[in-house]
């Protein structure tokens, strides 16, 4: 609720022209106690005498770029490690694929002989010789010869005390 009269009074007050302004300052001459003066001035003196510590907010000035750099380096390292690990797995898988595909494709002659010898060593020699004799008895000479050659490759030192197949 403002009236023109009050507005004028306010403007006068704002221009520091009224008696109220002067009287108010006369009415209120409150001052801080002397003990407060001593406390504040002592604190101001101590602040100058105290060694300047490193305020926390100053730490953030270098901590922020340091943190960003460390994060970047760590990220790049992790990514590179993961990529290298991925490469190893990929090459390992392709090599394994090659090994698994080789027998199905075309084993070399030496490799095939070695594999056959390994299989042959798992057969009982006496039974194997009996099987060869049965082949010969049945007139399957060629097959009997292949089996005999395989038997000899697998058991070159074997001596059959009964008789030659």
């Amino acid at each position, binding site marked *: 609720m403002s009236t023109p009269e009050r507005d004028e009074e306010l403007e006068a007050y704002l221009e520091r022209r009224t*008696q109220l302004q002067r009287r108010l*300052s006369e009415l209120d001459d*409150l001052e801080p106690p002397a003990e407060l003066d001593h406390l504040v001035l002592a604190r101001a003196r101590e602040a100058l005498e105290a060694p300047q510590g490193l305020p926390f907010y100053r730490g953030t000035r270098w901590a922020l770029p340091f943190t960003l750099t460390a994060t970047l380096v760590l990220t790049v390292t992790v990514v590179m490690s993961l990529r290298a690990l991925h490469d190893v797995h990929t090459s390992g898988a392709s090599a394994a694929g090659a090994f698994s595909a080789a027998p199905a494709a075309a084993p070399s002659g030496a490799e095939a002989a070695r594999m056959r010898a390994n299989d042959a060593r798992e057969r009982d020699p006496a039974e194997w010789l009996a099987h060869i004799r049965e082949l010969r008895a049945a007139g399957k000479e060629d097959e009997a010869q292949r089996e005999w050659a395989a038997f000899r490759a697998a058991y070159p030192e074997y001596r059959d005390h009964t008789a030659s197949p």
Partner: protein
Amino acid sequence: MAADRVTADEDDGQLMLRYAAGELCAFEALYARHRAGLYRYLARHTRDPEVANDLFQEVWSRVIAHRASYEPRAKFRTFLFRIAHNCCIDHYRRARVRPQPPADSSALEASETLRAPDAERPDSRAEHAQLVARYREALASLPAAQRDVFLLYEQSGLSLEEVATITGVGTETAKSRLRYALAKLRGALAPQAAAQDARFALSEEPPT
């Protein structure tokens, strides 16, 4: 509170920079200039001498702590009373109370000395004491926002625009609050003024 190397017209901001550079005398001069106004603002705002004393120390502690980062972009008064205003707000938040007139303001009144001129007669001193009491009562009865604007304007010496900035309101709002505050204070003082030969009337001073 000697300030040997400080001139009377030296700018507050310059004094603050000198204090930040290690000159205690600059702070002493700065303190001498603003101690009374700041204390009255806090004491009249909180109406509790203990709280006013605590906040007074807190304000100056913040000034001291911010000396290194202080930049004289605005008036030192604005810087100082902005801190004081914020300290009051923080105090009310901590206390979880709205600033209300105290039920008994005798604590603050008892801590003060009513200074009537010694040469005056006892009846004049009594009138003066009565006027002071009425003024304080009227001030305490103001809504917090009006009292804040009035005290900031009265004690800081800042312009109304600067007071509005500190309190976070528009200039017109600050002006309105000040107008209401003045009207209430004038109403409280008017009867006494009439009784005292109209010395306290809200009229312009006669041209001299």
